[in-house]
């Protein structure tokens, strides 16, 4: 009878230890943070003829003050008129296409 009780106690104890061990093992598995799969790369928006899209040309800020620009225009007109006068006085292909020092053509 004593032997039976001792075996029963040992079995109960073993069962309790096994239950605790199982609980601890189970708890440690569920409390671990889940492994996050790598975020998929963001899909690019669909585009037609994306390669042919011309990039926007940046608008250049005006660099030259308008008074200077007007002077350049007037200078250009005078130089062009002088070149045209030369052509009228001596009409050749070379004189017609002669270069001037105008900033608009250099």
């Amino acid at each position: 009878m004593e032997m039976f009780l001792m075996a029963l106690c040992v079995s109960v104890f073993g069962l309790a230890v096994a239950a605790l061990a199982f609980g601890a093992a189970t708890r440690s598995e569920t409390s671990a943070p889940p492994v996050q799969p790598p975020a998929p790369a963001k899909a690019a928006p669909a585009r037609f003829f994306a390669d042919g899209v011309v990039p926007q040309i940046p608008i250049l800020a005006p660099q030259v003050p308008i008074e200077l620009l007007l002077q350049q225009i007037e200078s250009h007109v005078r130089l062009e008129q002088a070149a045209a006068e030369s052509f009228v006085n001596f009409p050749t292909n070379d004189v017609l296409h002669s270069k001037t020092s105008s900033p608009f053509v250099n």
Partner: protein
Amino acid sequence: MAHELLNGLSRGETEQVLALGTRTKVQSGASLFRLGDPADRLFLIERGQVRLTLPMQVRDRQEDVLIEEKSPGQTVGWSALIPPYRFTLAATASIETEVIGLSRDALLKYFETFPDVGHKIALNLAIVVGHRLQLVQAMWLRQMQRTVELHSALAANPR
């Protein structure tokens, strides 16, 4: 003062034509005529200087851009003798200027009486107009050449 419009006229003819006109002083910066105004008279420049301009958009402003400058002896405002009798340029005195204004009506009436003088003046006017045409066509061609070159350069290197 020898005026290009009166070349070939005798002294007496020149005096008769000039007597048809009205001398006017134009202060520096003052307008002689504006673009689109009815052109009922042309002007012979006695002294000073006249700027002929056209409006042009420069950035966000409209500016009168120089087309031609005229000096003593030269003629401005010949639209007064060419239909539709509207000034196609604006004229402003660069410095204090004196002009002789000749009205179309007075000139045509005088030409009816003195057709030989009218013939000479018409030939002189043709020279003035023809010279302007030759200048403008040369300037236009030069500008067109640059436009073609610029277009070709952009087509060869679009970016």
